[in-house]
């Protein structure tokens, strides 16, 4: 796939030269998804059917991607969670490198053995639909090997994978949960202001988690990919919440539970103590600042 074959403009168009898109979806969903997101064709043999035994190798490699991205201290997904909480109800989109053209040292780091062929996924975005609003999806895993394999120059791979995935899923509203001190905040904030549904989340394994939602548009997806032609309006920050300040998170949660509304208008900055400072702005009933 050449960049000139589709209208995508990103901060790293070379990704489309080096990698190929893939989609894991059960047969009962396939016709409801967009297999030419932004004109980028997903080859028929790169649409992986998780109910078929021939998919076993590729699905095992997704687990490797998950583990290498998040490491032993992360929240790795056992294969049964992949199956139950992604492949049956939702879908997985990402980019893959052809195993045959990976340099041998990189292949070893990806736990590939000599003679293996096919696709090695290097990014994935996992999402499942929500119950009431049509075309609303919850993203629960965004993995990228950009930092693990700097030699491949996969800068912005996570953002680009998420943007194209949401287009594949025909998503019109996205919900997600992310920790206040997670670098993933940089990725999610590229898509524009994010409204906060929670600021302190005991329902999650990490209570210092925020839950966000945003309305998906092509313009915001292009912004997420780093299209130089798109500039999103962002309200100025009114205050900041530090990524290591649970009291501030709990105070904000109290205000959310009392009916006040807030957005995270842009990316965090890093304070002198090394902790993230996450910008926050109050909005009114209509979502205006």
């Amino acid at each position: 796939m050449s960049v000139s074959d589709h209208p995508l403009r990103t901060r790293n168009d070379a990704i489309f030269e080096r990698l190929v898109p893939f989609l894991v979806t059960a047969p009962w969903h396939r016709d409801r998804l967009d297999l030419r997101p932004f004109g980028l064709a997903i080859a028929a043999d790169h649409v992986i059917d998780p109910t078929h035994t021939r998919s076993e190798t590729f699905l095992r490699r997704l687990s490797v991607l998950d583990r290498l991205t998040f490491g032993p201290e992360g929240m790795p997904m056992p294969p049964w969670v992949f199956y139950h909480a992604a492949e049956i109800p939702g879908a997985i989109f990402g980019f893959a490198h052809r195993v045959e053209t990976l340099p041998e040292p990189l292949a070893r780091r990806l736990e590939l053995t000599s003679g293996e062929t096919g696709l090695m996924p290097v990014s994935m975005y996992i999402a499942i639909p929500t119950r009431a609003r049509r075309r609303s999806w919850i993203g629960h895993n965004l993995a990228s090997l950009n930092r693990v394999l700097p030699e491949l120059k996969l800068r912005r791979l996570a953002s680009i994978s998420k943007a194209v995935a949401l287009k594949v899923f025909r998503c019109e509203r996205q919900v997600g949960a992310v920790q206040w001190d997670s670098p993933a905040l940089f990725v999610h904030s590229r898509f524009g202001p994010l409204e906060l549904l929670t600021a302190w989340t005991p329902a999650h394994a990490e209570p210092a988690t925020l839950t966000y939602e945003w309305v998906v548009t092509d313009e915001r997806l292009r912004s997420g990919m780093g299209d130089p032609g798109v500039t999103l309006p962002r309200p100025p920050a009114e205050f900041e919440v530090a990524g290591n300040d649970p009291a501030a998170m709990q105070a904000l949660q109290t205000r959310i539970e009392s009916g006040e509304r807030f957005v995270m208008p842009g990316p965090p900055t890093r304070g002198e103590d090394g902790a993230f400072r996450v910008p926050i702005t109050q909005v009114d009933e209509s979502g205006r600042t």
Partner: protein
Amino acid sequence: MDAMHEGLDSFFVISPSEGGFDLDCRHRVDPLRVDASPFLDLIQRLDELVKGPVDRVLPRWAFYDCAELPGAVAGFARQARDLPDHTRMLMKVAPRYQGPVPLSQAAVIPMVEPGSWHVYVVASLDRVDAGLAPPDLAAATIVMALRGLGATTGYAAVPWGSPVLAALAPLAPLELLTAWTPAHSEPATMTCRFAVAAEPGRETSPPATMWIAPDDHDGQRRLQSGLESGGRYEVVGSPGPDGVGLHEVSSP
């Protein structure tokens, strides 16, 4: 719905951010609120009690991200004060807690196709101790969850020997989608789809023409091969001493 099991209250853990349902239940728990935490602790404790021995405990983040936010966790509960001491101890109910204690739960996830829901996790306390909850509680919980959410089609993935399959099978014929599932941690897992009937179990099933035992991995692989070659099969009736009964709808 509350009359389904006398003395038990139905509950839904469900996010209001996804729009409203006119849910018929006694307790509605909002996972976006801090005060939901004690009940969510009990949800997780029930899962640990039932699933612990098979190492299939759902991480708390997966309950939140993959069930409570997009779908629901529904089940039956009893007030803490009405539970025997040994049940409160088993469930690790805090001494001052006065709210409902879940005795069963089904985590369900909506699917892309409107009306279709995936039954993700099922747990009921009778699997820990038969005297702690009615024996058909798991099946009643699945039915209550799916019907409460307006589901027309259910999906599930369960190991061939799982008690959850025994709960599902009497509800309706289960269209087999996989019989041997390497994508799952336990390949001896079947995936199925079924109609959510107004009166579950009333539909007449055809007689079984073949049987698959939980440990018959060769048979499960042959059946999977048949599915991948275009064959269609249904699980019919409750599992018996010979295994799970199947009806061949069409040959590969």
